[in-house]
């Protein structure tokens, strides 16, 4: 039972990170119907930018708590802005010129952009992985293993709490953004019918750009969380995280924001429980099999709308 609880906590944490990345996929897919293959690498870029800021500003665990929190918020904002700029640039250079072109074209440029980003970071930051001293240590011990000390120790660390809290807050914020603001309305309009939206005076290009910017900003949050949680990153983390986040987006129903979050949580849980109870080596196989099974039996996902074939 204690073991289960610990896996549950870990799974929810991992799932939150996947969920944050998945939102970027789901928004972009919803609005222009393409898999933004480079999104996983945007997440990786976000993690690197956050790491560089943390090291450059000399943020360490020895700072007083209040200062540490303020510094982390500053890092978060700065890396969100910069990663968003990367996301915007990728969209501007690789996707916008191909709007209205045939279906495969943007997917190929997306793969190209993904390879380019990965290797750019490998060259500029080196191929070795970057270990970061833990910034947030400690946590609550929910179960100390019983009186005889033979049970399993269950811990809920502060960084896990932070990740879950930030994810929840961002989720609420973005749901409000999509449902209440004019930008969100424009996005939903573009999602339904791009031509009609542009006839009604919505700047479609700008809306799409902003979608990419928002997705990239969320991915950078995920990057920082990943960095704080695992404490080590390399240039290759984007690929697997990207594919799994896409799986999460599909599982939850592509185009649906709560769906992406739900899918992320499920994928995180499946992966953690699989590695906890079966085998660590095959955890990726488990996640990918889920993807295949969901797509085959329930292509519209858990919370998605079924796709209507139009002639």
């Amino acid at each position, binding site marked *: 039972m204690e073991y289960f609880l610990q896996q549950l906590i870990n799974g929810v944490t991992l799932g939150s990170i996947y969920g944050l990345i998945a939102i970027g996929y789901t928004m972009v897919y919803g609005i222009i119907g393409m898999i933004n293959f480079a999104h996983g690498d945007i997440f990786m870029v976000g993690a690197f930018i956050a790491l560089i800021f943390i090291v*450059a500003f000399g943020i360490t665990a020895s700072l007083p708590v209040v200062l540490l929190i303020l510094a982390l918020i500053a890092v978060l904002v700065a890396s969100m802005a910069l990663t968003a700029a990367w996301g915007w640039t990728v969209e501007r250079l690789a996707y916008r010129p191909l709007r209205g072109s045939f279906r495969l074209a943007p997917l190929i*440029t997306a793969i190209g952009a993904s390879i380019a980003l990965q290797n750019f970071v490998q060259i500029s930051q080196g191929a070795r992985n970057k270990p970061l001293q833990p910034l947030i240590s400690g946590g609550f011990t929910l179960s100390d293993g019983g009186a005889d000390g033979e049970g399993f120790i269950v811990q809920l660390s502060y960084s896990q709490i932070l990740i879950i809290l930030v994810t929840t807050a961002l989720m609420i914020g973005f749901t409000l953004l999509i449902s209440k603001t004019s930008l969100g309305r424009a996005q939903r309009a573009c999602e339904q019918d791009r031509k009609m939206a542009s006839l009604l005076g919505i700047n479609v290009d700008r809306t799409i750009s902003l979608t990419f910017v928002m997705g990239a900003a969320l991915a950078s949050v995920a990057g920082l969380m990943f960095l704080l949680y695992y404490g080590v990153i390399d240039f290759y983390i984007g690929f697997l995280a990207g594919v799994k986040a896409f799986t999460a987006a599909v599982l939850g129903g592509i185009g649906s924001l709560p769906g992406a979050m739900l899918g992320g949580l499920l994928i995180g849980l499946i992966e953690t429980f699989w590695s906890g109870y079966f085998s660590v080596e095959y955890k990726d196989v488990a996640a990918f099999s889920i993807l295949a099974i969901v797509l085959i039996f329930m292509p519209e996902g858990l919370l998605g709308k079924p796709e209507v074939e139009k002639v």
Partner: protein
Amino acid sequence: MSAKSDNLLAVSLKDAAAGGLIALALFSVLIGMKAEVASGLGGQLGIEYRWVAVAIAVAVVFGGRLLLNLFVWKADKPVTETAGSFMPSAKMLAPLGKYAMPLFLILAVALPFLLLSAYGARGSRQYLDLAILVTTYVMLGWGLNIVVGLAGLLDLGYVAFYAVGAYSYALLAQYFGFSFWICLPLAGILAAFWGIILGFPVLRLRGDYLAIVTLAFGEIIRVVLLNWYEFTGGPDGISGIPRPSFFGLEFKRGEGGFADTFGLDYSSIHRIIFLYYLILIMALITNFVTMRLRKLPVGRAWEALREDEIACRSLGINTTNTKLTAFALGAMFGGFAGSFFATRQGFISPESFTFIESAVILAIVVLGGLGSQIGVVIAAIVMIGGFEFFRGLEEYRMLVFGLLMVVIMVWRPRGLISTRNPSITLSGKKAKGISADLVQEGHG
């Protein structure tokens, strides 16, 4: 005129400055500050500042954008227009299609002898190796072209079948001692079998979903190969894979070898030349089969499927079977190529079957022009040749490769050869090349 050119310069400068500023923002962190494990800090990260590199990168962006603005984007007479007239247009391609194919073929057949006479046995080895590599990718490209180019199904996990072929041969040779010539058809059949197994459930999916499932499948195969240590050797791979023989004659020194039987002096280059012809013939068979299949009902069904799946279904074409045959055939040729890869290398490991391989093969097909057989050849020569040419710049070539994929796609979204001859025409009418703009992409 001068006012206009002044204006042009001002606008271009402004635009280039904006680009430079964005580049400055983007590069200042990722290039300007390198997080490196410093030796003095006890394993902690330190920052190494490199502002000169940032300045260079920003200058390149600024200068590049300025030149592009002045001469291409905003100019009255873009230089690309003049350059573009040299690019193959539909009209120029008609004779090209007629003569280029035989020409390419003659060149390909004569290549080993040309190289031998030019560089000698020792010097030509590296060029022959490169030719073998390029031809392997041509074959893979043609195999994938059946799936992506003809049937319009986007497959991002093609390398899985390549891996199945390679491992089938390696394992059959290791456990049962089968020779290459027995394993070659078996590997193809096994790969096709896997194609069907994978195909059955997922082929109901459309477009991008299919792409992502095939990608996942490719990764699953790789992870299994990596972790099933007892059977596949895991990350160590399989080594000592037997070499192919020439109708039972081995390429070895002394009695009973290939050179001995034909009264030649032994040279290691014989085997390389043999391997080259082997893959050339395999690739040509792939091409031949594809071209013939295009004319059969199943080939026409593939192309119809690519153009419009719903119309296909309403005309009574069994879309599942059509997709499955395309998938299985593409997989089979991937399997053939895989077992050739295994026998050429003599060593395989999961390292060789990563997603990047799938991306390279898909890029060859798409950049060459979907459905164009000659386009695949050109793209394979350009990409793999260029790839090896820049081997010295090991670090940068993948970056350049990624950027090239973006640039070529933006420049020519339909690929380098974007016209194709119709498979069938009304009797009496002359076959005319169809411009790519007229060819709708299906939804797979």
